[in-house]
């Protein structure tokens, strides 16, 4: 995300420096959205506990999506929740980032073969950082947040946009309807 909405990296020396400064501020003040889903949400809370204390890095939870910068998808996203999750993502103000926490959010995890589970949150929203684990340790989430920080602050990386998500909700359709068979 560039300066003030543009997606191009400014070549001007003054604007370029300002761009660097603003993105440095963004990377050092990432406020996650309070949105716990499942098991990983407990470890997400534990990332803010006295042992890890992500507040050291200037991160604290905001309850409303308007004021949040990072969405941590902490748990299994099922088809019922996915529409709300996409809506929350749409409600967040630009610039915004998504961290996919845990195996379930990455690709469905142990519930991948189920009828109601979305096989990875990246089918719904563009994801910046993936964390493996079931559930990942708080240290892993902190590392992901720091990776995201480095990504935002990096001159080249921050203009590499995540994969575009088609706007249709086909992945959320009920399986087996109209005799459709799974596409593997």
């Amino acid at each position, binding site marked *: 995300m560039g*300066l*003030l*909405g543009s997606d191009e990296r400014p070549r001007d020396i003054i604007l370029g420096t300002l761009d660097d*400064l*603003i993105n*440095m*501020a*963004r990377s*050092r*003040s990432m406020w996650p959205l309070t949105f716990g889903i499942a098991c990983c949400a407990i470890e997400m809370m534990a990332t803010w*506990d*006295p*042992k*890890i*204390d992500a*507040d*050291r*890095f*200037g991160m*604290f939870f*905001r*309850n*409303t999506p*308007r*004021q949040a*910068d990072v969405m941590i998808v902490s748990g299994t996203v099922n088809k019922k929740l996915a529409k709300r999750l996409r809506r929350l993502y749409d409600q967040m*103000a*630009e*610039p915004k980032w998504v961290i996919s926490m845990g195996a379930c959010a990455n690709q469905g995890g142990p519930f991948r073969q189920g009828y109601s589970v979305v096989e990875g949150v990246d089918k719904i929203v563009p994801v910046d950082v993936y964390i493996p684990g079931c559930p990942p340790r708080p*240290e892993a989430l*902190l*590392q992901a947040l*720091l*990776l995201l920080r*480095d990504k935002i602050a990096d001159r080249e990386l921050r203009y590499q946009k995540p994969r575009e998500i088609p706007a249709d909700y086909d992945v959320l359709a009920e399986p087996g309807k109209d005799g459709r068979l799974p596409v593997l």
Partner: protein
Amino acid sequence: MNPIPIPEDRHFRPRLLGYDPQKSRPWLERLVYSAYVFVFWLIVIGTYAGVPALFEALGWNAGWGFVLMRALQVVLLFLLSAVIALLLILVLRKYLGKVQERYGPMHYGPAGGIQTVFDALKLLAKEDFVPAAADVLTFRLAPAVTFVASFAMFAVVPFASGWVLADTNVGLIYLIAVSTLSAYGVLLGGVSSGNKWALIGALRAGAQMVSYEIPLALVFLTVAVWAGSLSLGRIVDAQLGLWNVLPLALSFVLYVIASLAELKHIPFDFPEAESELIAGYNVEYSGMSFAFFFLAEFVELFLLPALIVVFFFGGWHGPLFGLEPGSLAAGALESLYFTVKTAVWVWIFLWIRATLPRYRDDQLMEFAWKAMIPLALFGLVLAAYLRLIWR
């Protein structure tokens, strides 16, 4: 990617459960905060002593020159409020960290000192969002109203003897008028957002303000009766021998409770009520509009304790060590006394915030109407009676 810096004392060791949260470079933290306070102090001196002295030297202290001087002072006060907000947010986070056995911001800047600058810069560059259901004009206006109402209180707060923008003889009435105005900003912002949570928050704010302005005004009246003036400077002067906190103890307690409610501060933070109303009245605000609500909140967090000091703790009074009253050095020392006293009260407010849960809103309303207003009236009568027999 460097390895994650987890402080040494955070690793799991069952035998070592005691630890010192501030073990890491406490001198640096003190230095950073001292630097902030020093900047604050410098701005105060510059505003109230430097600018008039400059205009005096230039000979511009009449007519348009005077207007220009006041305008410059207001600009400096705006800078001052920004410094206050940046410092208080940082102090709040560090203090919460200390209470909660953790560190708080510590990695960006010396001892986390420029964390809030980053926050402000980020909010500046964040998308400022207007929801489709919102009333655009009111929605845009509300944060400005809130901030201006809080900021306008600076006009009558004396930092030292004579160091005040407008020492009017209706200072208390002005304060009541302006502090009520900040409720309008919250109310307008909540109602115009087109969001039900914001609406509930706004209505709660309205009900709370209506309930709390009355005991607050009654306490103002008590102080005015005791000091015999509505001017804040005269009120402070009247406390030269005896701070108001002793004779007006009852009113003082009521004033602290009422200013907690006025501040929308735990345990009375119903309009915002993070765990109930998500973010209350500012649920739809993002970017700079939200930052203005934030700024207003922390400016008030400075100003209401400052008013406690003005009304009950002798304002700027303190030992002058033989300095000539009215000189620059005496003014600087007095403003330092004022700042220190205010800081103690800010700390008490933060302490309350870190410790207490939240009451229910109707309990507060009930308390305000059934207990505080009668008590405030009693305090008023008591003050009048004491003044009759004492002075």
